[in-house]
Structure formats: C-alpha cells, structure tokens
C-alpha cells in the first residue's frame, strides 16, 4: 500500500515537472502570466510529492517491509533505526530518489524566494531546473524504481554495507549530493539569462549565494570523504585519485574557477562568455560525475551497481550540453564585453591566471580520469594512470596556484605598479625564507618539501597581512581591535571570507606536503611484550581479545601501549570487526593523534587460538591533522562569505537595473 502511494507520488511529481516546463514555455511565448504562474506552482508542488515518496520509503525501511526490494537490499531487521533512515541513500534507487528530493527542494526554494525580483529570468530558470528534475524523476519512475516489489517476501534483509555505517559515510553522500544538486540552480539562472537575453550580472548576484552554498557542500563532501577513507579504509591515506573521487573534484574545480571569475564580471563587466562557459562546465561535470559514479564506465574501487542508466545519462548530458552551446552561440554578440584587461599586473589579470591554473588542473585530472577511454580510442587498448602520475603532473600547478593565492590580493583593479607588489612581497618572502632555513637546519633535505613549505608560508603571511592592514585601517578610525576586525569581515564578507578560505587551503596544503612527502610505514608480527619502533614512537604489544559487540558483530581487539621518548603516551586498541551475518570484516585503526603527526596502527592479522601474537601495520603521518583543521577553517571562511548580508539584499531590491519587477509589469 505504502509502495503504491509512493509510486503514485513520484509519477505525479514527474507529470508536474513536465507540465511546468510546457506551461512556462507556452506562457512565456504567448505572454500569458497565468500559465507561467501555474508552471511555478507545479514546480513547487514537485517538492512535497517527492518528499512524500521519501517519507514513505523511510517508513518502509523503519518497518523492515521486505516486500519492497530496495528495503530488502539495503537494510535488515536488527539494524539501528538511524541507519535504517540513512539507508535511504545507501543504494542506487534510494540515492536517486534522494537526489530528486534535494533538487526539488532547491528548485522550490529558488522559485519561492526571488520570484518577484527576477520575473524575466524565472520562467526560463524554471524550465531548465525542471528539465533536470524530469530526467532524474524519469530514472526513479521508470528505470530504478525504489518501490519495486518482491514476489516473495524474504524473512530478513541484506543489511547496509558495513563500510557505509561510519558517521562520515552517513553524512558524506548527502553533502556531495547537496553540492551537486546546488549547482543546478546557478546553471538554471545562467541559462535563463541567455534565453531571456538579460546578460547583465543580475543572474550572478541572484545565484551567488546558491553557488557558494553548493560549493560549500561539495567541499564538505570531499573533506568528509577523505576523513572517512582515513578512518575506515585502513590504508593510511585520504585521497587516491580514484575516478569516483575525481568525479566530485572536477565540478568542485570548475565551480572554484567560476566563483573567482564572476568577481571580474561584477567589478568590470568582463568575461561574460567565460563565466557562462564555466557554469555550464560545472553543471555538465556534475551530471557527468553522477553518471561516472553509477555507470561503471571507468573502473573504480567505489562500487555502485552497474545498471541500465548509463546510456540515459549520456543522452541527457549531450542534450543539455547542446542546448547550452546553442544558446551561447545565439547570444555570442551580446556576451561580448566592451572592457579589456589593461594590465597583466591587475586584479582582473590575477583572477584570470587563477582561472587558467584551475582549468589546467581540471584538464589534467580530466585527461587522467578518462585516460582508459581516451587511450582505447587511439590505441585500441585501455590504459591506466596511477596516483604518482597525477601527483607529478599536478604538483607544479598547485604550487603556482598557492603562490598566486598569496600575491593576488596585492594587485589593484585596472593596473597595479610593479613597485607596490615588490614592496608587498619583500618581507613575507624573507620571513618564509627564514622559516625554510630553520627547517633545513633541522635536517630537512627534500627540495620539494622546502619549496612547498616556502610557498605555503609566504602566501599565508601575505593573506594574514591583508587582515592586519584592513583591521589597522579601521583601528585608526577609533575602533577597538576586535570590533575593527569584526566590522572588516561584516563589511566585506565575500572578500575576507574568501581570504579565510585561502588560509584554510594553505593549512591543508601544509598538511598535505607533510603527509605526502614524509609518511613512514612498517608492518611486523609481534609476540606479547615485543615492540615496534617508528619515528620517535615505540609500541609495545600486550594482548588480543575477542568479544561480541552490538548487532551481529564479533570484535577482535589488540591492546598496545605507545611510548614516546620513553614515556607512556596512550594505550591503543586497533581492532577488527566481523559482521557475522555477512562475514564482512572491517579493520578499525587506532591512533595517537597530535598536532605534529598521527601514529596510526592497524591490526592486520592474529592467531585465533592464542592471544599472544598479532601482526600490525603502523603509519606515521606527519601533519595530517593540519588537513582536517584546514578543512574546518575553510568551511568557516565559506560560511562567512555566504552569510546573508542585509545591506546587500537591500541594494539588490533598490537598484532598478536589477529589479525586473517594474519592467515586467
């Protein structure tokens, strides 16, 4: 019964989405406002319908209704309730349904919020967003139906993949989805601007926060994914250049380039074509990413069921791409800008270099990710490139990008004098050199690391100086230090939030250089009382215990004491969990975690009969916690930049050029 209602709701949502596209198009063509209004209502109604379907699926999961195939696939009777709820996105059909829910929510919110301000753009934005919705609804209505029934009801379900039971994994997919789905909105408005031929920056201003929020979620998804891999996958790493990881990195890169280059359009009314191209690219990479993850086109370690949705995705990407290209070429003349870059040492040029570098990184990642397909096309044989190749090719590009991150704030719009920049970088360069000299004196001989640390230090000082200069200028006007700093942030959230994001990135870069270049590892079998030594750490193995845990868990846990400089630091309990019903083991590392490094230990093997012998694998990951700390700073910076600003909204409403209301009525 619930399944029937769920299916019905989805079919209804599908029809509403189709109706909204047709009605909006017809209403716009014939200038009948009633049709457009009706289209808008139909779009908004999609959300409660999809929400109902999701709710019914969650209820079915909670009730362990195994007559529904999806419920049987991803849950089992004795799974805790919170996991049953999160199993909504634990499998293919459910995660597509969840995609639909987020897209419907975003679209409804966008249509409800700015409708009156953007009367001209809205019908078109509605059409584009609804086209995306139609495609994804089509998938859950006809191809991957979450409410498909089983003829015979099994007594118990499959259970959720244990690897997905980690908190990081529970949050990571929704974050990525939010990021992916979020980019649909700026794309829809960009297309709307093209279709309505309103190519000023109002579409950018309307969607700036959407873009930032989508970007924030995508960033969070990437960071949490890395953290999950580090905590759960037990290989001491956090990023493996796997196609599926790259599939979410690529839209993030394109989105990052877009966020930077729109600032040139806002300030100088330039790069309209380029911005259009970037948002279309971001959206295409989002859909392509969703497709790659689920189609099995590129062999990846991430598993999603390979299904028939591959060709459909391909068709949809092609359709949207052709549609975008058509409108861009149609508006070619209107997208041309009167303004030009006047100096190669200006702020706009700096943004341009930033875009060049990010697009270069994106191109490299793209080529390597799709290398199996590309090579097969040219040589008839599938090739493959591993992480070292990525790192070799990308390291110089990332280094230049970090350097630019520091220097760019010194440039001015239109043109800036070489002398000013030279004066600005002199002291930071000297301090960074001293910092590196100290590292050298302490025995660091890796030139890559020294150069990397120099760049990070140099850019970090320059960025912090921006805060100092701004705050000092306000203090001169009589504000206290904290007040001055807070006002500085509040007055220009976009800029100073952006600088905090840069600081976050630099902190992460510091951590990445540390772990990538100085990681140590060892694997050894120990008897009780024996020890292993790695770096300054000594680990003495005590014993192995076996006991039953929650649910169907069987836990094997080793106890080992870790000493540093002869002093006991911590007792570690690395363990192996076995989900006996599925016989799926999971290795849970334990670590001594400090600001400077992680001593990370895995229990690799043990003798079932004796508690006195076990094999361990230990990693020393220098500076790894800087990556997570940098991630936190990064997120805070993005929140500062995206925080609603009352003054800005007022400006948007009061500025007649950006208020379509008067013009439309």
């Amino acid at each position, binding site marked *: 019964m619930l399944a029937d209602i769920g299916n019905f709701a989805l079919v209804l949502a599908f029809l509403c989405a189709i109706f909204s596209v047709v009605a909006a198009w017809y209403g716009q063509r014939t200038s009948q406002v009633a049709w457009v209004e009706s289209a808008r209502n139909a779009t908004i109604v999609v959300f409660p319908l999809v929400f109902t379907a999701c709710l019914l699926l969650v209820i079915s999961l909670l009730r362990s209704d195994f007559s529904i195939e999806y419920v049987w*696939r991803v849950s089992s009777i004795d799974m805790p309730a919170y996991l049953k709820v999160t199993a909504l996105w634990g499998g293919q059909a459910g995660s597509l349904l969840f995609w639909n829910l987020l897209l419907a929510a975003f679209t409804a919110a966008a249509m409800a919020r700015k409708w009156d301000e953007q009367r001209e753009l809205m019908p078109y934005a509605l059409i584009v967003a609804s086209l995306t919705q139609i495609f994804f609804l089509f998938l859950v209505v006809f191809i991957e139906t979450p409410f498909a029934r089983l003829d015979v009801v099994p007594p118990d379900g499959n259970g959720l993949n244990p690897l997905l039971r980690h908190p990081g994994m529970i949050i990571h997919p929704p974050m990525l989805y939010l990021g992916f789905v979020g980019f649909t909105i700026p794309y829809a408005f960009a297309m709307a601007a093209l279709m309505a031929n309103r190519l000023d920056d109002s579409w950018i201003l309307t969607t700036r926060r959407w873009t930032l929020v989508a970007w924030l979620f995508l960033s969070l998804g990437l960071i949490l994914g890395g953290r999950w891999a580090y905590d759960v996958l037990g290989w001491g790493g956090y990023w493996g250049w796997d196609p599926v990881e790259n599939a979410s990195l690529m839209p993030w890169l394109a989105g990052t380039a877009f966020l930077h280059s729109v600032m040139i359009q806002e300030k100088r009314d330039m790069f309209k074509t380029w911005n259009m191209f970037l948002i279309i690219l971001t959206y295409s990479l989002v859909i392509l990413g969703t497709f790659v993850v689920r189609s099995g086109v590129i062999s990846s370690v991430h598993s999603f069921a390979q299904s028939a949705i591959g060709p459909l995705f391909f068709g949809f990407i092609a359709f949207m791409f052709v549609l975008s290209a058509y409108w861009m070429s149609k508006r070619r003349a209107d997208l041309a800008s009167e303004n030009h870059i006047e100096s190669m040492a200006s702020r706009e040029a700096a943004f341009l270099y930033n875009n060049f570098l990010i697009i270069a990184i994106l191109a490299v990642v793209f080529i390597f990710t799709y290398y199996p397909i590309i090579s097969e096309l040219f040589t008839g044989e*599938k090739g*493959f490139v591993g992480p070292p190749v990525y790192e070799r090719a990308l390291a110089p590009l990332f280094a230049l990008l970090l350097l630019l991150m520091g220097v760019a704030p010194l440039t001015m719009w239109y043109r800036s004098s070489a002398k000013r920049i030279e004066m600005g970088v002199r002291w930071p360069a000297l301090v960074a050199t001293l910092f590196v000299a100290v590292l050298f004196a302490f025995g660091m001989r890796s030139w890559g690391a020294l150069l990397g640390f120099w760049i990070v230090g140099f850019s970090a000082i320059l960025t912090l100086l921006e805060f100092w200069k701004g705050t000092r200028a306000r203090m001169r006007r009589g504000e206290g230090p904290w007040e001055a700093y807070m006002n500085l942030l509040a007055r220009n959230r976009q800029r100073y939030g952006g600088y905090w994001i840069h600081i976050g990135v630099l902190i992460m870069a510091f951590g990445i250089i540390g772990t990538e270049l100085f990681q140590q590892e060892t694997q050894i*079998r120990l008897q009780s009382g024996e020890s292993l030594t790695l770096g300054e750490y000594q680990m003495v193995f005590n014993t192995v215990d076996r006991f039953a845990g929650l649910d169907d868990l069987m836990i094997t846990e080793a106890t080992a004491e870790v000493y540093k400089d002869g002093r006991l630091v911590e007792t570690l309990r690395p363990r192996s969990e076995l989900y006996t019903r599925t016989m799926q083991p999971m290795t849970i590392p334990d670590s001594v975690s400090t600001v400077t490094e992680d001593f990370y230990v895995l229990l690799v093997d043990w003798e079932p009969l004796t508690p006195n012998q076990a094999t361990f694998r230990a990693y020393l990951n220098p500076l790894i916690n800087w990556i997570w700390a940098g991630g936190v700073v990064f997120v805070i910076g993005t929140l500062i930049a995206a925080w609603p600003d009352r003054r800005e909204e007022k400006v948007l409403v009061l500025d007649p050029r950006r208020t379509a209301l008067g013009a439309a009525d």
Partner: protein
Amino acid sequence: MTQASWTKTQKSDVTQTSKNSRLKFIIGGAVLIAAIAFLVVNAMSGSTQLYKTVDEFYADKSRLAGRDLRVAGWVLGDSIQYTQIDAMNSRLEFDIVDDYARPEQKLHVVVLNEPKPDLLQHEAQALVEGRGDENGVFTSIPGGLMLKCPTRYEEMEPEV
C-alpha cells in the same frame, strides 16, 4: 574639430587594444595548452599501465607478460591464503577469474607484505597493479591491490 579627431583616435585605440588583447589571449591560451600537454606527457612517460581483464591477459599472454598492468577480475573465495612468513614478511595469495563458469582461466595474484583487505572475499572484484608471468602468476606492486565493495550489496538476488 579637435573633438572629432580625438574621438577617432580613441576608436582606433580601442580596436588596437582589442586586437592586442585577443592576441594576448591566443598566445596565453597556446602557452597554457602547451604547458598542460607537457605536464601530462612528462608525468605519464613510462608510468602508464595497460588495463586488462584476466581473459584479455590470456588472449595476449606472450606480449603482456612482464609488462606493467592493472588487471581486473573476480576473486575466488576458496583460494585466499594469508601467510605470515616471519616477523617482517607476509604473503597474500588468491585467484581471480573473469567468469566463474571458467575457473581454470585464472590469474594467481601474489601480494607481499600487505594486510589482507577487508573486502577481499568471494565475489569481490579485485584491481591489481603489477606484472604477470606466462604461468599466470601475477605479482602486485606495494599498495597495488584494490577491491571493489562486493556487489552482493547491490546485485544479489533475494533468497527465500
């Protein structure tokens, strides 16, 4: 008159700037593409592997033996064996096939001094980087073994 001539100069200046900036863009773009091409080719030289399935390996064994490969295949659960040789050395072995109906066409994968991955079990799909020999023994490079989550979570048919 002065005004007129000023306007004229201004206009041709703008055209000039526009041409200049277009030229700069073209040069910049060319340099960018060249730089990307260099980085890609340089990073890849000697470091790419061929991607093969077990059957593809056997179809062209004499040529592929000894070359850097990434092979993909399905794990035969009964063949998994983990041996701790001594304190510092371990050996993980298992067979992979393309088709469970043809278990004789298999590669024997050997992984030295690595933990046994959680996902290594019957019906898991393994991706292994390394080199194979003519006898079908495939030795993984350090860190070269990766496994996909067992597909049974998604593809298994219900049993009642």
